[in-house]
């Protein structure tokens, strides 16, 4: 009879692994039965060993008896007996088996156990995956998935139900990793972790670069080599982490969290060299994705080769095709910023230089006009000091030339001090040329003025009272030679005086003054 059931099971297409020991003491199933009892009382807990039920072995032992005497008398089972018998048969004859089917009504309870129904076109069976087994799942079970489960059939007598208690569930078709990848990707995407708006720009000036990778991998060597050649002064802080194998994801996640809080870190590169999907798996784990998303500074992912895409790549602020590429991105960004600073400086300098040159031209032109105006008039009015004034004028003009030269030199110095060296030559040439033009201009003006002064002096001489001297008059000056002496009472005996004649000058001493006498000192009347 048990063999018949076996055959039926085989005929039904279920793959069975049969133990040769059909008559295992039923006592060994009692714990399973206890498990079944708890199974259907929701919420479920994982089965725990329970003491054997004393009645259990008796039923199994008695079972052959009614069958053997079937021809003689009617055997009436109690429901419990029958169910216990069914349970005994199922649990003994279907010890561990693999079943292929589609998942439906899949639910995970708070306790961690997963309940679902496995079905094909014509039949279905309830199934459960307890928490301890559910933890081993690499992917998330969902309705519609085509899977092969491994487990045992168990019966719950109180409800007359049976189900498969699974210890392993594997997807059919795509690998478990592939499915896990797609699922996590979909889930994080729905959460918005891949949104473009979340991506942070690289720091304006990256100076300290955090690197999370393994100490002995090719990735570290590549990153350092590229930084050496393209960003020689980079400061690198390395946080070693195992990047493959059991526990790698946890290590990588912890490393990201640890390096993010190091002072001065501007950007973090997380990655490893190429490998199989299993080798790269740590970077497809949720814990790593979350660590990247929570990182304080921008993260560049650099996992495997160009064709490898991991969850880390989707979450990172920047995805680099390879570790070398990650280092290149940082170096290029930094070099772009340096170039930008240089350009801004040069542009600013050129603009100001143009402005200063224009202003300087205007200043010289304006000061020349206003300062020189009025000079000829003043000179003409003060004929006696014509020559002194001429000297004063020349001094003043020299002063202005000197000042202009100083200004020009100072501007030139400022230009030299702030300009890039290649500009200094040009600036100096311009400064010299400007000074030359300025000197020429002032020289020209001076000549013109001198000519005018000469003419004015000539005219003045013609009209001057001094011309009267030619007719025999003399002018008497006081000792200082500043004032003409007009009154005798302004002098005393002993005062020195100067007498200007038509030709020459006489210095004399007063011997006597006659304030009231206008006639005696008159020259001989004609």
């Amino acid at each position, binding site marked *: 009879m048990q063999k018949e059931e076996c055959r039926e099971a085989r005929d039904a297409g279920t793959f069975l692994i049969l133990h040769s020991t059909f008559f295992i003491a039923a006592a060994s199933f009692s714990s399973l039965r206890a498990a079944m009892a708890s199974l259907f009382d929701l919420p479920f807990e994982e089965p725990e060993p329970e003491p054997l039920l004393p009645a259990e072995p008796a039923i199994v032992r008695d079972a052959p008896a009614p069958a053997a005497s079937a021809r003689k008398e009617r055997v009436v089972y109690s429901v419990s007996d029958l169910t216990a018998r069914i349970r005994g048969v199922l649990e003994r004859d279907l010890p561990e088996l693999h079943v292929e089917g589609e998942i439906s009504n899949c639910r995970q309870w708070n306790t961690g156990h997963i309940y679902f129904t496995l079905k094909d076109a014509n039949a279905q069976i309830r199934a459960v995956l307890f928490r301890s087994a559910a933890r081993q799942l690499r992917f998330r079970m969902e309705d519609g998935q085509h899977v092969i489960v491994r487990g045992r059939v168990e019966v719950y007598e109180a409800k007359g139900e049976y189900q498969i208690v699974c210890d392993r569930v594997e997807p059919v078709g795509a690998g478990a990793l592939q499915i896990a990848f797609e699922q996590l990707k979909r889930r994080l995407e729905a959460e918005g972790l891949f949104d473009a708006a979340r991506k942070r720009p690289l720091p304006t000036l990256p100076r300290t670069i955090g690197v999370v990778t393994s100490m002995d991998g090719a990735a570290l060597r590549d990153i350092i*080599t590229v930084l050496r050649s393209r960003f020689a002064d980079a400061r690198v*802080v*390395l946080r070693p982490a195992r990047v493959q194998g059991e526990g790698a994801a946890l290590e990588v996640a912890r490393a990201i969290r*640890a390096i993010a809080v190091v002072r001065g870190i501007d950007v973090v590169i997380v990655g490893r060299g190429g490998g199989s999907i299993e080798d790269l798996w740590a970077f497809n784990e949720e814990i790593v994705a979350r660590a990247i998303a929570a990182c304080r500074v921008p993260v560049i992912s650099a996992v495997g080769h160009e064709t490898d895409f991991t969850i880390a790549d989707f979450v990172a602020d920047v995805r680099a095709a390879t570790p070398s590429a990650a280092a290149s991105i940082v170096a290029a960004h930094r070099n772009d910023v340096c170039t930008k600073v240089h350009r801004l400086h040069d542009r600013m300098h050129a603009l100001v230089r143009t402005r200063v040159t224009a202003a300087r031209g205007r200043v010289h032109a304006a000061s020349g006009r206003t300062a020189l105006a009025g000079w000829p008039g003043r000179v003409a009015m003060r004929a006696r000091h014509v020559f002194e004034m001429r000297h004063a004028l020349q001094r003043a003009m020299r002063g202005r030339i000197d000042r202009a030269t100083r200004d020009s030199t100072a501007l030139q110095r400022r230009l030299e001090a702030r300009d890039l060296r290649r500009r200094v030559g040009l600036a100096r040439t311009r400064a010299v040329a400007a000074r030359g033009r300025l000197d020429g201009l002032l020289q020209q003006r001076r000549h013109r003025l001198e000519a005018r002064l000469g003419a004015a002096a000539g005219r003045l001489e013609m009209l001057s009272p001094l011309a009267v001297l030619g007719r025999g008059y003399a002018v008497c000056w006081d000792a200082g030679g500043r004032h003409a002496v007009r009154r005798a009472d302004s002098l005393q005996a002993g005062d020195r005086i100067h007498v200007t004649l038509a030709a020459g000058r006489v210095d004399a001493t007063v011997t006597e003054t006659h304030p009231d006498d206008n006639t005696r000192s008159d020259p001989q009347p004609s």
Partner: protein
Amino acid sequence: MTEPTIKDFEAAIAELESIVKKLEEGDLTLEHSLALYERGVTLSRYCHAQIEDVERRIELLNERGELKPAPVGLGADATSRRGE
């Protein structure tokens, strides 16, 4: 390099850009242009100093969160030992 009027590199480069823009637009007095220029030179110097203010080195962050110099030869190229 400390420059109390400059917040950070990003602020410096942004201000430098705005100065160049103002100078390009013209219509400034000479005094204003020169004042902007002085400020621009300060900013530009700050930026250059920031760019150069990087101490080339490789450090290891250990389990206790301490920074240690990386072993010599890490990264396996000769240039990494420059100046050591």
